[in-house]
């Protein structure tokens, strides 16, 4: 029977990072990926934040298949026929890497897997891992396509859909529909120069990212629009329980978002080339799943490691950080010749020392915001109405801002409620 030092289940960012670091340190590593190529099963928005990547893959931006550097981030509130856009741009052209890059996973993930292969890891695509093999309560290998493979340690990096641990009886914590969102996305083709001009970019290397609130069928969630080289990634992310209560199908919510005049003008003339979907755990420090046990570690979104602070939704860099923390613990375990849960506990300590974890703690109070339905269907409309009052010279006498606000709030939200919400937003994002 084949025996490896480490088996990695899944060749996404988490799995590829773990495989890369373990192989680089001289371990015999095999990565098993169920897609026929890495990335062919994987969907993200997708924005890749550079910091963590650059720590593991120095100068990744020189060789990785990136779409555009994100030089602008916008938060957009969509009312019925209004938009209020807060548009931040970093116009310093000189510095690399940029804060973030847009990527398409089917193109980007093969590059990550290649880094692992170049470091000596073996990649086995096109095989679904059917189960974890255990002996005396310890994970000792996997079974895929009827074959058993053994290893000192198994890295579970199979993403949000992770079911191996549950089936092996090693995980009892269930997902709750209120903690998970459904993301649906259209990839829309447009000529490169049209995108560059339409989004006021200098050239085809620059791009922007919009995070939108409102106009998602009244369902708690948000929309996004990211520029790629010659495509746009346009999608919505909505809580699963809110979706089934609304009786609105996800693609209908996406269509409503795309039909908003602010969005429809940005995607005008484009042609949809792919439709995709992904369940996304909302993450958060209080919802981190089990990270390790006897003979195994869990990394990336399989361990529910994500960070959502409304402004940004981070999955890939969080996955990389967790995989690096796990790899470090595995290498220490190898020194001791012990892969028990006690030996692998270093993973949790390593992860808690990362900035990613610290960010998760910093934004722990952001999560109640994602539950606040007024954020999704009262305030976006209100923002447009108040600014509309202030800019419009109409038949009625003009009002100052506060008077306009009080008038526009009437029947929608009380002053008291709004102060409470402001406090919640302040606690979540500001102070």
């Amino acid at each position, binding site marked *: 029977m084949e025996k490896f030092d480490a088996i990695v289940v899944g060749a996404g960012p988490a799995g590829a990072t773990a495989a890369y670091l373990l192989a680089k340190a001289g371990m015999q590593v095999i990565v098993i990926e169920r897609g*026929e190529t890495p990335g062919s099963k994987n969907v993200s928005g997708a924005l890749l934040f550079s910091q963590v990547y650059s720590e593991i893959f120095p100068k990744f931006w020189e060789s990785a298949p990136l779409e555009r550097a994100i030089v602008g981030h916008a938060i957009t509130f969509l009312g019925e026929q209004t938009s209020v856009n807060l548009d931040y741009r970093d116009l310093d052209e000189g510095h690399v890497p940029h804060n973030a890059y847009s990527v*398409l996973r089917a193109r980007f993930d093969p590059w990550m897997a290649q880094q692992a292969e170049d470091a000596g890891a073996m990649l086995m695509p096109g095989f679904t891992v059917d189960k974890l093999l255990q002996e005396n309560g310890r994970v000792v290998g996997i079974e895929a396509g009827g074959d058993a493979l053994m290893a000192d340690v198994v890295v579970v990096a199979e993403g949000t859909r992770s079911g191996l641990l549950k089936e092996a009886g090693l995980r009892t914590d269930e997902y709750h529909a209120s903690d998970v969102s459904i993301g649906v996305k259209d990839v*829309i083709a447009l000529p490169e120069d049209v995108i560059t001009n339409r989004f006021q970019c200098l050239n085809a290397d620059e791009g922007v990212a919009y995070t939108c609130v409102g106009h998602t069928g009244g369902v708690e969630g948000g929309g996004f629009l990211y520029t790629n080289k010659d495509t746009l990634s346009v999608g919505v992310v909505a809580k699963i329980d809110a979706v089934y209560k609304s009786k609105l*199908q*996800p693609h209908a919510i996406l269509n409503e978002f795309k039909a908003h005049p602010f969005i*429809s003008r940005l995607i005008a003339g484009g042609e949809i080339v792919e439709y995709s979907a*992904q369940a996304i755990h909302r993450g958060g420090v209080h919802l981190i799943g089990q990270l390790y046990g006897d003979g195994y570690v869990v990394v990336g979104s399989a361990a529910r490691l994500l960070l959502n602070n409304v402004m940004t939704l981070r999955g890939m860099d969080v996955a990389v950080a967790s995989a690096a923390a796990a790899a470090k613990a595995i290498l220490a375990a190898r020194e001791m010749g012990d892969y028990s849960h006690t030996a692998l506990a270093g993973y949790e300590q390593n992860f808690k020392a990362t900035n990613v974890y610290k960010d998760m703690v910093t934004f722990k109070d952001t999560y109640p915001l994602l539950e606040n339905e007024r954020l999704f269907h009262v305030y976006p409309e209100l923002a447009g109405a108040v600014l509309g009052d202030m800019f419009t010279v109409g038949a009625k006498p003009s009002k100052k801002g506060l008077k306009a606000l009080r008038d526009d709030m009437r029947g929608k939200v009380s002053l008291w409620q709004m102060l409470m919400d402001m406090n919640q937003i302040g606690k979540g994002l500001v102070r």
Partner: protein
Amino acid sequence: MSARTLTLDDLLGLDRYEIDEEQSHIQVDQSRCQRCQLQPCLTVCPAAVYVVTEGEVTARYENCLECGTCQIACDSGGAGGITWRPPRGGFGIAFRYG
């Protein structure tokens, strides 16, 4: 205006699948579905894989985008009738952009 609104079938027609003709990766336990009030699967699936035909919930598994939403919605808001496992290696959705 752009990106004329495509039907869901049009959208799914854009995607590339390697369909497993021999077996479905989704199992539906009708006895549980019969006593499911909410039937969240009929709403949440982005590919409308789940449909009611002749009073039974059936899974058009060949359209599955493998997002994992149905299992979570079913376990949490439904009656637990859905068992979703990844398709056999090499089968199912194959994203070209992702």
